[in-house]
């Protein structure tokens, strides 16, 4: 079905507004036709995932080609942010990343800046940059950002991969399909949580369990049974894991999320998730007694409150000589953590605090090879789901158990 374009959009397609916008709208029309979008919807923000491991030489060369166009043709039309980068120039040598990685990173940054992109380098922009508002249409380029924006704020975004998010920044629009449409936002799956999650890793575990059950971008779970409102970091871990395990982009949690309960069809029987299911999920990644090579707090990047929790858990202790402890946060939170002494308290233990990266987007396979890393411990269910494909053996544990294990050098 052809996508209906306005006069201005037809002008973009004809090249009146330059080659970058012509490429952008052609890409959007192709995606829109695939999903039977009737038209394009204006967006107020875009958010680009463009780590250099994903881009490769071909992706960076593509960005550089468009970035070399005249300034009036290449500037984004709406505020456009960046997801975490592949490398932090302050820490890359300590982590075993190479000069070649730093060089391609610098090229990608220069190209993105030429579009007028704001280099926020974060996957927690909803906590730190500009939270969305209800019914705002967005083009967000990180699954955790999309699910949080859609569910917690009632905004409207699909998963926008890097090329599509850049296209949205250039045109100020995105194809109107999926979670931009009310009919796609109705609940299709029903879950009842019968155990109280004890920490962030368990919030992630519940997200992972529901994500595995859903298993499709087009399923919308409704979750009941959580008897007190979770905080932002809990919903962050829950949503990120749900999006990772299920490719899920929206959940409803009556009493917590803003949209009224509407079902896509007959109300399905609820699936119960209790203590046994949570414990079994965590145990499936268990490895008590194993040597720990690397402990990672990331995916999503840490909030200031999480940074303080890591600092408190590490206070006065030393990370084992054969273990690396890596903490990844956004540049904004890193500045705040520096100012408040949290970075110093964490790094005095021997840990590394990196800004603007998120581990799995940072050449995780090459890091494993360079450092001899195999056993990874984290409190992020999203990270344990992703990282197996890079050759790691991941274990999920609470923040406190992660820190105790980093100090002991083995999984405690």
């Amino acid at each position, binding site marked *: 079905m052809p996508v209906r374009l306005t006069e201005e959009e037809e002008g973009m397609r004809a090249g009146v507004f330059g080659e970058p916008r012509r490429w952008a709208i052609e*890409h959007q029309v192709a995606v829109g036709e695939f999903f039977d979008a009737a038209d394009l919807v204006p967006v107020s923000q875009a958010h680009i*995932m463009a780590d250099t491991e994903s881009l490769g030489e071909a992706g960076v060369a593509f960005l550089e080609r468009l970035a070399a166009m005249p300034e009036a043709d290449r500037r984004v039309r709406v505020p456009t942010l960046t997801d975490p980068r592949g490398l932090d120039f302050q820490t890359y040598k300590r982590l075993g990343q190479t000069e070649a990685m730093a060089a391609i990173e610098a090229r990608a940054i220069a190209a993105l800046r030429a579009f007028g992109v704001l280099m926020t380098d974060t996957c927690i922009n909803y906590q730190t940059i500009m939270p969305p508002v209800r019914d705002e249409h967005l083009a967000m380029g990180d699954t955790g950002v999309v699910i949080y924006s859609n569910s917690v704020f009632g905004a409207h975004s699909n*998963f926008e991969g*890097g090329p599509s998010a850049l296209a949205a920044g250039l045109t100020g629009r995105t194809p109107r399909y999926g979670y931009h449409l009310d009919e796609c936002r109705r609940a299709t799956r029903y879950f009842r949580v019968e155990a109280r999650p004890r920490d962030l890793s368990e919030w992630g575990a519940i997200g992972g369990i529901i994500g595995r059950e859903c*298993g*499709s971008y087009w399923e919308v779970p409704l979750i009941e049974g959580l008897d007190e409102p979770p905080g932002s970091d809990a919903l962050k871990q829950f949503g990120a894991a749900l999006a990772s395990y299920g490719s899920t982009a929206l959940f409803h949690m009556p009493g917590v999320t803003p949209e009224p309960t509407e079902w896509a069809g007959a109300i399905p029987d609820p699936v119960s998730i209790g203590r046994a299911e949570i414990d079994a999920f965590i145990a499936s990644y268990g490895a008590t007694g194993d040597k720990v090579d690397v402990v990672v707090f990331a995916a999503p990047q840490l909030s200031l409150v999480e940074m303080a929790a890591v600092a408190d858990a590490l206070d006065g202790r030393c990370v084992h000589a054969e273990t690396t402890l890596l903490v990844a946060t956004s540049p904004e939170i890193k500045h705040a953590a520096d100012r408040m002494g949290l970075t110093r308290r964490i790094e005095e233990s021997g840990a590394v605090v990196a800004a603007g990266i998120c581990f799995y*987007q940072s050449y995780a396979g090459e890091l494993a090879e360079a450092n001899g890393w195999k056993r990874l411990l984290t409190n992020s269910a999203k990270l344990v789901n992703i990282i*197996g494909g890079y050759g790691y053996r991941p274990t999920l544990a609470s923040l406190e158990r992660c820190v105790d294990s980093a100090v002991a050098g083995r999984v405690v």
Partner: protein
Amino acid sequence: MPILLRCHPGIGPAVTGTALVAKDNFSARYDLDRKAGTFSRPSHALAGQSYDGKILVLDTAKGGVATAWMLHEMQSRGIVPLALVFNRVNPILAQGAAFGGETMVDRFEGDVTDLIRTDDELRVDPAAGTVEILNR
């Protein structure tokens, strides 16, 4: 007489090639060793197998957004599936196919991972919205 399967019109050029089928999902970041051209995630149904030049027949997409860039990067090095034939894709796979020039179709009448077998010879025509099984 080839078996004709109908699907939603897709993305990319028409291609002919050999199927690699599994009842599993797909993410370029989660599942692949893109240098070797193999499935690297130990728990994937196709773990250890080469995807290079194959028509991948799988259920749906999983996980995150990286595949949108990675299909383009894989195309540039020539170590890439010939086409993606799925029951239902998410936006990232569609965006990645559109950006990378990868052939992709989805939305069949029936479960495509049952209808097609590994080593079947397929003709995938995204514009027509058809997949022909040539060897049966």
